[in-house]
Structures are given as structure tokens and as C-alpha cells.
């Protein structure tokens, strides 16, 4: 049996083992680039009962971070300041709101993030805050509590008004009203005796008969209306025809007027020519008349100029 131990080998092996252990630990603890976190602040105006450190922060149901700090806001002691660590890859913008949501019946609470506008500008850090601040909205319980309070107040008011409505005076009035109603009902009952009901039945029957007759009459009325429409159409056509005739007559009259105008012009021209001819004829007749007058006074003048010439002055 060889008990000779190579201590050098053992030492080297131990060193290699420790090195591998450190490397593994570092690999395990080293945060990847994708898993880089961003811290945000959320101020809640309500109690954060059930919210613990490392409580999850979810975005649309997906766990994107955790709560890393819980404290009362130093500037406003009515608020709780919650610091959360959220993955940088989470789309947080100015429209993102945080809401406390109960996790089943365990009493634990987580922060649910909701985004209203996907195209809102990214959330930036303000100068007086350490990290960017995500707005918070009241949780379901807060809303429920508020609503319940309002509802209780309204109910209380309603009860007070009901109490006022049913005071003694109103109760008396109501009793009187009910009594009068009873009287009226009794009278109606008296009025609606058998004869009256028979009469009403008879009237209803008559109305039925009238309705039936009207129903029978309606087709006739429809036919009458159709005929009226047809007659109206016919009248319209007649009027159109008359109008067309008048238009044609107007054209004809216009043509006649033009013809008359032409005839008038021709007649005027003819009259002028005739007047000219008449004038020439008149001149001829005057000359002829003068010759005849001269011969009448001395017929022998046709051959012998026997008549004594009456000499004019200067001749």
C-alpha cells in the first residue's frame, strides 16, 4: 500500500474547486442586462394595509418588480411613500397609474400598474424627487368605502325626507285622499251598473261596426285617391298640352308678327313707290291741265298762236 500523498495536487485541486465555486456564485448573483431595474416612487393617500416589502408589482398581471421600501411621506404625513423596483423594459409612461389590489383572500396586497395611453411620453424624474413618481389611484376598497359613505349619507337624507313626508298632517291628507278615492270608486261603481255596461258594450260594438265599415271604406278611399291622383295627372298633362299649345301659338303669333312686319315694310316700300309715281302723275296731270286750259281759252292755238300774249312786267 502506497501512502504517499501528492499534496501539491491536492492543493491545486482545492484551489481550482474554490475558484469554480466563486465563479458559479458570481454567475448566479450577477444581474443580466435585461433584468436591470429602475426605482420608482408611488404616493398612496390610503392605507397600504397588506402591502409588504418584496410584495410584487404587476403590469397587466405580469410581475415586473417588487416593493423595496415602505415609509410615511415626510412632506405629507397623510401619504405613504412606496419605493418600487421595476424592470427597465416595462413600458412606464406619464399615463401609467398604480393601484393597490388585494391578492385573493390572503389579505396580502400587491401593486397593479395600468397604462391608459400607450403613446404618452415616458415618465421622467422631477427635480425635487429622488426617482420618477408613478401616480396612484384609489383602490377598489377605497372606492367602495367612499361610495358606501356617500350612499349612507343619501339614504339618511332620503329617510329624513320620508319622515317629513309622512308627518301627521300629510298622513291626515293622505287618509282624506284615500277616503275620497273610495267615494269616487263607489260612484264609478254605481255609474257602471248593468245598463251602463250594456250601453258601453253596445257603444263599443257600434264603434267596432264603424271601424269595420271604415276598414271596408278605406280601399274605396284609396281607389278614390288613386283616381284623383290619376285625374290630377291627366289634368296636369292637359295643362302641359295647353301650355305647349300656347307656346306653339306664341311661336306662330311671333311668326305672324314677323310676317306682318315684313308685309308692313313691303307695303311701306310699295306706298313710297306709289307715292312717287302718283307725284309724277300729278305733275303730268298739272302740265296736261295747263295745256288743256290754254286750248280751252283759244282752240286755234293748237295750230296758230292767235291769242294775244299777256306780257308780264319786264318782258
Amino acid at each position, binding site marked *: 500500500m502506497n501512502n504517499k500523498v501528492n499534496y501539491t495536487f491536492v492543493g491545486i485541486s482545492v484551489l481550482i474547486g474554490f475558484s469554480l465555486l466563486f465563479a458559479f456564485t458570481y454567475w448566479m448573483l450577477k444581474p443580466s442586462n435585461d433584468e436591470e431595474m429602475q426605482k420608482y416612487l408611488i404616493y398612496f393617500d390610503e392605507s397600504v394595509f397588506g402591502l409588504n416589502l418584496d410584495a410584487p408589482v404587476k403590469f397587466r398581471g405580469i410581475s415586473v418588480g417588487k416593493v423595496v421600501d415602505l415609509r410615511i411621506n415626510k412632506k405629507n404625513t397623510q401619504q405613504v411613500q412606496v419605493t418600487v423596483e421595476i424592470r427597465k423594459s416595462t413600458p412606464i409612461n406619464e399615463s401609467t397609474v398604480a393601484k393597490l389590489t388585494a391578492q385573493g383572500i390572503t389579505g396580502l396586497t400587491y401593486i397593479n400598474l395600468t397604462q391608459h395611453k400607450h403613446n404618452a411620453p415616458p415618465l421622467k424624474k422631477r427635480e425635487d424627487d429622488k426617482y420618477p413618481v408613478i401616480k396612484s389611484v384609489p383602490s377598489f376598497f377605497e372606492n367602495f368605502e367612499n361610495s358606501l359613505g356617500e350612499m349612507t349619507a343619501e339614504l339618511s337624507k332620503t329617510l329624513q325626507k320620508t319622515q317629513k313626508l309622512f308627518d301627521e298632517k300629510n298622513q291626515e291628507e293622505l287618509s282624506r285622499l284615500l277616503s275620497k278615492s273610495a267615494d269616487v270608486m263607489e260612484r264609478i261603481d254605481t255609474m257602471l251598473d248593468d245598463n251602463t255596461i250594456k250601453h258601453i258594450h253596445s257603444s263599443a260594438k257600434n264603434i267596432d261596426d264603424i271601424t269595420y265599415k271604415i276598414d271596408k271604406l278605406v280601399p274605396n278611399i284609396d281607389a278614390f285617391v288613386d283616381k284623383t291622383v290619376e285625374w290630377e295627372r291627366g289634368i296636369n298633362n292637359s295643362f302641359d298640352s295647353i301650355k305647349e299649345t300656347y307656346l306653339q301659338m306664341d311661336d306662330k303669333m311671333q311668326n305672324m308678327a314677323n310676317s306682318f312686319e315684313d308685309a308692313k315694310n313691303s307695303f311701306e*316700300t310699295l306706298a313710297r313707290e306709289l307715292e312717287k309715281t302718283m307725284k309724277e302723275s300729278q305733275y303730268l296731270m298739272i302740265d296736261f291741265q295747263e295745256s288743256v286750259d290754254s286750248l280751252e281759252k283759244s282752240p286755234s292755238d293748237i295750230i296758230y298762236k292767235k291769242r294775244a300774249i299777256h306780257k*308780264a312786267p319786264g*318782258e
Partner: protein
Amino acid sequence: MKQLLYIFVSVVLFTACSTTYPPYSSYDIELKSSAVVKKAKACSKETLRVDNVSTSQPLMSTKMYYVSGVESYSYTVSEWSERPSEFITEAFVTALQKSNVFCNVISADSKAKSHYLLESRVDTFMQYYNEAQTKSYAKISVSFFLIDTKTQEIIAHMHFEKEEPCESLDAKGGVKALKKLLQEASNALALWIAGEECK
């Protein structure tokens, strides 16, 4: 015998040709251009028709009539070369054309339509002698009527009457005086039309 009869008839007829007549004088009245109306810058675009003058029968003849006392005679050796009714009409047309009041002045014979019609009536255009035939004067009397052809209504009217003593106691003196009177009547017409047009 038959031949002698022909010769006799021929001699009788030809003796008519032996009748001698004194030489005839024909008178024509040609008026000078009138300058009494200042020519308008832009004449009226409307048309004026000048109708033939309406005259008595003696003024439609070329015979030159005169009145001595109360009797009317005609000159034997003097006559108008144109009928007075015609040359009076021409004188009026010419006077109106030269006045340039109307761009278009047409005579009665024109076929064109007109806006206005001028009718004239010559009552007197003759030479007068006293009974002793020692004095003579010419007289003109004419009336003008401006008519709207659309309404056939008289728009305006004017009467011109004047006498002018004759230079000589013969036809020539009468013609000269009548010529002067016609010239004055034409001028008066042009002035009247210009005045009426401007209204």
C-alpha cells in the same frame, strides 16, 4: 287736183311754223351752303326723314307765276327749270344735312326707317306786283312740323313768313328775291331743328 289739195294743206300747216316766239329764260335756284348752324360735335344717331313739301298747284308747275294786284299770271318768256315744290324740298334737305344735327337726313323716297319726320307746307312762294306794276316784292310762307314716327304725334312746329323787295321789276328780280327768302327759310329751319334737338 288731188295734188293741189295736198300742197294747200301743207302750206296751211307750215304757216303755223312761221309763228315766232320770244326766247325763253329758265331760272334755277341753287342755294349756297348754310353756315348759320354751328356744327354739333357729335350728331344724333337718330334718323330724320324730310317729306316732300306740300304746296298749291302753281308751285308744282314749271310755269313761273306772279300776282299783279289780285290777279295771277304766268311769265310768258320765263319759267322754272325745276318745279318749285321739288327745289324747295331739296333746299330743306340740304340745309338739314349740312347742319349735322342728325347724322342721317333722308329724303321722302328713301326706303330706310326713321325716328322723326319733318313735314313742310308752303303756302306762298311767289312774286307780287302792285296794280300799277311799279313795285314788286317776293313772299314766302312756310310751316314745318316735326313728328315722332313712333307715336305719330307732332313734337314741335314752326312757321316762317317773310317778304323781300325785288331788285328789278321782272322775273329775274323776283327769282333773286325768292332765292334769298328760300335761303333764309332753310337757315331758320336748320336753327329750329338744332334747337329742338338740343332740348
